[in-house]
């Protein structure tokens, strides 16, 4: 049923709740896990400056060490969890608008299931920060498993 499971991650606690579920499913179905980190262009532009967007376009993401490190840490966390259970992992880093990239990646790599964490935000916080998960749901036709994050108070 599921041969390739995609876990989009931004390295936060929220996206890590999805890992457990993805690993468990992958083990049952003998599937491969794809860990995807998306470098958000908006975050690059507003956070590092518009010139850095050009730097990425020129193929120089490799020289932006901190960005690269953050991406590798995020996908690495997924890879560690998966390899502990002997599951094959593909780590990927892309640049763009997160939801669009996730849905494109799912199509390109023939993903069967997307497992993604969500803040379960509501009200003002949701309006301000938006929900990448919600947009992924709307932009992909692949099955999506949403795992809500429940903070321990």
């Amino acid at each position: 049923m599921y041969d390739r499971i995609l876990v989009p991650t931004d390295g936060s606690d929220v996206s890590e709740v999805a890992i457990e579920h993805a690993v468990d499913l992958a083990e049952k179905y003998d599937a491969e896990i794809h860990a995807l980190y998306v470098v958000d262009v908006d975050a690059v532009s507003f956070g590092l400056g518009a010139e850095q967007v050009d730097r990425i376009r020129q193929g120089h993401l490799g020289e932006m060490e901190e960005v690269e490190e953050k991406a590798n840490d995020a996908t690495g966390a997924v890879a560690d969890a998966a390899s502990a259970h002997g599951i094959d992992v593909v780590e990927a880093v892309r640049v763009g608008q997160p939801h669009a990239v996730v849905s494109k990646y799912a199509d390109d790599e023939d993903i069967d299931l997307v497992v993604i964490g969500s803040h379960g935000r509501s009200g003002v916080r949701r309006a301000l920060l938006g929900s990448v998960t919600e947009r992924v749901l709307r932009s992909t036709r692949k099955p999506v498993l949403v795992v809500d994050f429940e903070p321990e108070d």
Partner: protein
Amino acid sequence: MSLLLPMQSGLLPEGLNVSFKLIPAILVLAMLGLFLVIGFVFKVADTEGMWVAGRSIGNVENGMAIGANWMSAASYLGMAALIALSGFYGLAFVVGWSTGYFILLIFMAAQMRRFGKYTAPDFVGDRYNSDTARAIAAVTTFLIGFVYAIGQARGMGLVGLYIFGDLGILGLTGYQSMVVFMMTITVGYLSISGMMGATKNMAVQYVILIVAFLAGLYVVGYVNGYSTVLPHIEYGEMFSVLSNEFSEPFVHQSYYLWIATAFSLVVGTCGLPHVLVRFYTVESERTARWSTVWGLGFICLLYLSSPAFAAFGTDLYSNQIGDVYGDPGMTSAAGDVIVVLAAQLSNLPTWFVGLVAAGGIAAAIATVAGLFIAGSSAISHDIYANIINPDATQRQQVLVGRLSIVALGVITTLAALNPAAPIAALVSYAFSLAGAVLFPMFFLGLWWENTNRQGALAGMTTGLIIWIIPMINEVLPTYVSSLDSTISPVLAQWVPAIGSALVAVPVVFIVTIAVSLATEEPDMETKRLVRQCHSPEPMDRMESAEEVVSTDGGEDVEGGDA
């Protein structure tokens, strides 16, 4: 203390045809649309190839981007305005702003490239290993964006009057309505243009502004019989007919003020965060140097033309409207639109005058975009993600960045409703700040390895204080009705807000060096980082000093661990 905004502020350039004009309005909107389309076409879509080198940005294109990012309403409108109003004093701007690029070229462009960071506060924070230094640099960056943009808002507000007329928003005056309108457009443009790269758009913005300016100059010169092929020189014939400000320098402004202004503009140029960011990202040191040369060349195209435009405008004004100098004389509002006014007084068709006006708006928007992005990255990257919340997700950084831009937009608009000075002077305040606080940190940080954290903190604090005192002395009274025009005229004479860097820079250098000498030397790692910025060995493309130091030690290590 009553702090209230709209007191007089019905800035109205006399002689300017203030009404809604369809074709120029379409021209401006089409221009904005074009920026968005270019951004969309060249947006970072899917970047599977982002680890492989793509097409790099060449020297010429980089140079154009430098030109557009650099030349704001202050260059396009304000420079001619000051020359028209104050004659030779205004040349301090031509001299200061172009000399600044030589210093940048010789001492900083390639070295900055070697250091290779993201933002200006990044450099300060990493070079001096201090979050406090990073925070001060970030706050300064934000402040520079704010002060610099007030002048841009004033420029857009005045030029917008010609194109859109008196909008009369919420009982505000025509000028104020236009400031609100234009700033709303600018912030709106910025908040949707995040995904787009900067360079392509900036190159287009440069082309628009330089074509509009030169076309304006040549046509105005030709139809009035002032000039034919080289107005930049031909306007010299008018010196005798132009009023005293042109022929007798320093009648109204002292030599000291001229030097203070020019010096501030030179060092400010080398300290402006939104100018320096480009040098971190260019392909190589060589590109950094050649881009600067091209950039300066593109900038000089406008700077050499500006005095001629001012001369033509002044003559047209005195023939058709009234005496430029004396009482009442030309107001600073009319001065700030002298470029547009000259085209209008030459009885040129409205679409052509609209083109000249649109060029001014392109200049202002391009620069505000650069300034606001530098301000937002200072807050979201340097303060929020580096200091407040190291675990910040990308979404949170976007949110903080967007909020910073909106905040900058709002405070800039409010301050511009009743601006304290003409465009070029407003912008100079930002140059004084950049020159006093950031330039010494960049310069000493790159050239003297013993500059340490304590020295940097002491120096930046000193710079901020020396900048703020004349600002309170001269500028604050405009916004606080209970204060007289200038609190201390003596202070204003010797430490003018427009040129406070002349006093601040030597003091900050002395303080930074003295404190650095008196305290512990920086560690070996930092020193090697600085040495690597000057190593005679060319670095590979895409390398930064930090990488070289962390991989092979950069050089023979004296006892430290590599």
